[in-house]
């Protein structure tokens, strides 16, 4: 999406994300506990923390992809009305982009994009926009399985473009991207926040967004 485009979309995005006292367990062990956070339109959070601290766990729980033990998760329109609570019924205003890329190796780049476009009910031109946003034009007919690691990651990230959802949870987006692609992604996040979008980005990289809140997941000091 070029910049003018997405800024024009500012009126679309006005969702607030709100988690209160969220605790999540995995394999019977408590991984994160009592997490509260409120994200107003335009808020971007960069989430850090050592390996195994629960970043992925938390993002998946926020996106309604993991059952929470305690607490509440709400997505509200900025006017205060509750749009939906993601647990059990993942909300149509959220998107989670995990470390896997949700693309099929046996389909071409374009076939993958078209499949997502249908699922996210993206409009006509979105495919083109997604292709250019992450510079995949040259690979339209390439099998996704024959892409390099970073190109495959770019394909995965292009879901963000197709989905056009206000609330993003993105997990290690830049893990195998080259410098210029990371840059592209960062600009794309800035456009998203300018349009009133919300994003939580888990990363280990030097990746940064001006004005983003920095949060850290760390093991509780043993009480």
């Amino acid at each position, binding site marked *: 999406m070029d910049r003018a485009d997405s800024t024009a979309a500012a009126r679309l995005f006005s969702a607030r994300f709100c988690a209160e006292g969220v*605790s999540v*367990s*995995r*394999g*019977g*062990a*408590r*991984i*994160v*506990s*009592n*997490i*509260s*956070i409120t994200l107003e339109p335009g808020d971007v959070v960069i989430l*850090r*923390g050592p390996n195994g*601290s*629960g970043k992925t766990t938390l993002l998946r729980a926020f996106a309604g992809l993991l059952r929470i033990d305690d607490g509440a998760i709400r997505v509200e329109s900025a006017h205060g009305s509750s749009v939906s609570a993601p647990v059990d019924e993942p909300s149509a205003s959220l998107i989670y982009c995990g470390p896997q890329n949700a693309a099929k190796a046996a389909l071409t780049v374009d076939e993958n994009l078209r499949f997502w476009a249908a699922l996210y009910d993206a409009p006509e031109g979105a495919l083109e926009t997604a292709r250019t946003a992450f510079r995949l034009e040259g690979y339209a007919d390439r099998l996704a399985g024959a892409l390099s690691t970073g190109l495959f990651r770019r394909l995965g990230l292009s879901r963000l473009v197709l989905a056009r959802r206000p609330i993003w949870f993105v997990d290690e987006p830049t893990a195998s991207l080259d410098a210029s692609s990371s840059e592209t992604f960062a600009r794309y996040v800035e456009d998203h926040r300018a349009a009133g979008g919300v994003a939580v980005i888990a990363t280990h990289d030097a990746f940064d967004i001006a004005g983003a*809140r*920095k*949060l*850290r*997941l*760390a*093991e*509780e*000091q*043993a009480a």
Partner: protein
Amino acid sequence: MPSLYEFANPVLFERWARPAIPWLAGATALMIFAGLYYALFNSPADYQQGDSVRIMYVHVPAAWMALFCYSVIAISSAVGFIWKHPLADVAAKEAAPIGAGFTFLALFTGSLWGKPMWGAWWAWDARLTSVLILFFLYLGYMAIWRAFDDKARAARLAAILAIVGFVNIPIIKFSVDWWNSLHQPASVFRAGGPSIHPSMLPPLFLMAGAYMSFFGAALLQSMRNELSARRQARLERTDVKAASTLVEQ
């Protein structure tokens, strides 16, 4: 009056289950003894089958229990799934091995009986196969419980399977009527009353009663074991790893 939920809460459960177990065990012993006495010495040999008919007193109640235990599992699963009641999940989980045992007993004794009656240990008719399949259903149910470390998830998934699998019970029950079969149709629990010789009924019902109270005793005991194992596991887990929290940087 306590609500159903309170009645089934783990502490209360412990309070009434513990004293109930010896009574049930005693009843089991008595009825087994009486039933076997009747079955072996005080009931007629069949005019066709001779003494091998006596396998019936072990076989038939076992087959009934196979169906009954599965129904218990399905019902407690539904309760556990809908009302999220942990005791119901535990009851369903612990009823499964017992039910599988009865199913195996029915298969085994039926097979033993089949050799003199039909000339083969096994035949491919619907009743026999569907009991075999019921055995698979039990195995699948227990395998789901074993496959997941996370007990809450295992409970939900096992419950879904048990409820869906319940549709098979009527099919097993009525397969003899619907499908070509060597096995005989129901002669006790059937429309129009029992059609077997009245003198065969007392030992049959005594054995059925014995199986029933055995089921009760075994179920309560293994539920108690499971509950205390879970308490233990919970106690041990707290000191494993601290959960993470968010801090602003």
